[in-house]
């Protein structure tokens, strides 16, 4: 991958720069890249005018990108390419090991994986002056994801069928109380951070607790309710709510919103004890040789219109209120997905340090019990 850098805004080329570009032309840099380097480049939203060219490789989930974001960006910045590889992992270890591999320039990662990657020193610090559009992201989300640009988050709450349960559910306590009554019709999320985090909330602790006694209590609570669970699921968690084969689900906001479109009787609960939420975003890899390109693309993707395209494509809960006018009404008007007041009651999952191993062991013990 060849990169031509330099300040595109400069009209005067130094002799050294001219020679360097000439040499680059000799080794086959696309003419468009050179032309781009000689012309002003801007996303039209106050971005830096630094010239960018080359290909930045991104580790991403399949289809976890606005339908036309990349095409729009590449049209605006000729010679710049974003190559997505659908290899993003939901596991911290998987994400960190991908970042260590040196294959990627930037990646989608959650706050836990990012924290671990930062601890190892493989995350590139961003030049925020080149990403002015970060101003559109809510302060709470920026604090929850400080080492990159936050893109989405998922609250872990309760989805249920009031018509089948016969009473109102308002807390995690209600879930544990009603589970024996609806044994075999309750599902939990099959991801340790979300499931154990929510159980810790039920017990009145932090969803990021590293206190062994609290984690032991969490394990006991989960093993206690396990005989009444239909399953631990990590995909289509709330699907059973549609036909009533599941009546209560520990579930992500977007999944409940999606199922509610097909079954209006489904209700979403912000549990009284609070919620944990994962927060995801893009981080740059320290070994990247295309950091200016990555930063320019990050800035571009945060433009409200482009960000709205991402939300409309993925249907995720969103982090930019400024994008609301461009987001389809089905999502924008959905109280489950809108970044409203309830977000204040959310505790974002973060890196647990050495306690990660303890969480893993406890989770395996719960699953094996």
């Amino acid at each position, binding site marked *: 991958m060849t990169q031509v850098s330099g300040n595109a805004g400069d009209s005067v080329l130094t002799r050294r720069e001219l020679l360097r570009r000439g040499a680059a032309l000799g080794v086959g840099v696309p003419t468009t890249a050179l032309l781009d380097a000689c012309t002003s480049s801007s996303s039209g939203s106050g971005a830096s005018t630094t010239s960018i060219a080359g290909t930045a490789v991104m580790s991403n989930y399949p289809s976890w990108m606005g339908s036309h974001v990349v095409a729009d960006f590449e049209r605006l910045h000729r010679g710049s390419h974003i190559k997505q590889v659908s290899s993003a992992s939901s596991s911290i*270890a998987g994400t960190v090991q991908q970042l260590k591999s040196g294959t990627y320039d930037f990646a989608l990662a959650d706050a836990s994986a990012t924290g671990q990657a930062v*601890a190892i020193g493989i995350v590139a610090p961003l030049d925020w002056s080149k990403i002015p559009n970060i101003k559109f992201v809510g302060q709470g989300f920026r604090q929850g994801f400080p080492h990159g640009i936050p893109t989405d988050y998922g609250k872990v709450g309760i989805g249920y069928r009031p018509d089948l349960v016969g009473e109102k559910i308002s807390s995690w306590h209600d879930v544990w109380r009603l589970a024996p009554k609806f044994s075999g019709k309750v599902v939990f999320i099959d991801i340790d951070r979300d499931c154990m985090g929510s159980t810790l909330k039920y017990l009145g602790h932090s969803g990021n607790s590293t206190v062994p006694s609290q984690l032991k209590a969490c394990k006991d609570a989960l093993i206690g309710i396990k005989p009444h669970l239909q*399953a631990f699921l990590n995909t289509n968690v709330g699907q059973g709510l549609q036909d009533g084969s599941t009546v209560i689900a520990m579930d992500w906001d977007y999944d409940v919103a999606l199922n509610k479109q097909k079954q209006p009787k489904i209700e979403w609960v912000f549990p009284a004890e609070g919620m944990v939420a994962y927060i995801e975003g893009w981080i740059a890899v320290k070994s990247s040789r295309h950091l200016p390109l990555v930063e320019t693309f990050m800035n571009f993707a945060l433009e409200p219109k482009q960000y709205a395209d991402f939300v409309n494509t993925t249907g995720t809960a969103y982090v930019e209120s400024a994008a609301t006018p461009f987001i389809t009404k089905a999502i924008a008007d959905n109280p489950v997905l809108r970044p409203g007041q309830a977000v204040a009651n959310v505790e974002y999952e973060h890196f647990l340090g050495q306690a990660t191993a303890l969480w893993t062991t406890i989770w395996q013990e719960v699953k094996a019990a």
Partner: protein
Amino acid sequence: MVAASAPPGPGAVSGCRLRRRHRVLARLLVAPSAAWTLVFFVAPLVLITVFSFGRENLVTFNITFGWTAANYGAFGGSLYLGTLLRSLDLSLGTTLGCALLGLPLAYFITRQRPGVQRLLLAGVIVPFWTSFLVRTYSWVNLLQSGGPVDRLAHGLTGHHVEVLYTPTSIAIGIVYSYLPLMVLPIYVALERVNPELYDAAADLGARPWRQFRRVVLPLARPGLIAGIIIVGVPAMGEYVIPEILGGGKTLMIGNIIVSEFLDVGNYPFGSALAVSLMTILMIMLFALRRVQPALEAR
């Protein structure tokens, strides 16, 4: 004596060269598969064994090779032993299930005309042409509440059957997926049997069940033993089927190994679990191999 001391004639020399050329040719022929085995089987195995004695910092994912046996010590914990026993239990049960279904099916196929045999064998093999994941996920639809199995049971008995996300659904999935691996070796064993043997048994007064027990079963034994090995070994380390049909509630040892590698990133401990499982399976296979001749001779 003269002949013995005389130099070898031109015929002997060319014979010697021919043998040498054959040897070289044979080595050349075996070289690709030997290289393949060395690079993709032996080397990873050695690597995993070396890793299993290492120690990993789970924050930095840096591995140090201090030749510690601690990973093997942890395998003795109740969590892993319990899971191993559950895997053994499920593996034995499903292998037995495959044998009980596969033997009559293979026998039935061999008793058909050649054209029908080919058709029935295609029926056994065709499921392999579709993705394993798709086939396994299709069982979710079949077994889920309100699905065809549930509706059928409700229609017949008036009771709903909640099978999905239980050990039973895992067993059903394993038997379904591995059944062809049991049927084919038994079919091969029975297909070689002269059909006149069955007629002779019938002429001598053996009723169908006695015929099956005294003639078919002993003749099918080599295929049956091969089927048990081919089904039992991978079933023991199975992790995809429990993941999809177990609803995350029934862990097998394969799930823990996968989790150690992909979720936790603890390669040394995952390697130790894999090596331990492999050792257990090898011991079982060697034991079976020792008794195999006696079983086949009976």
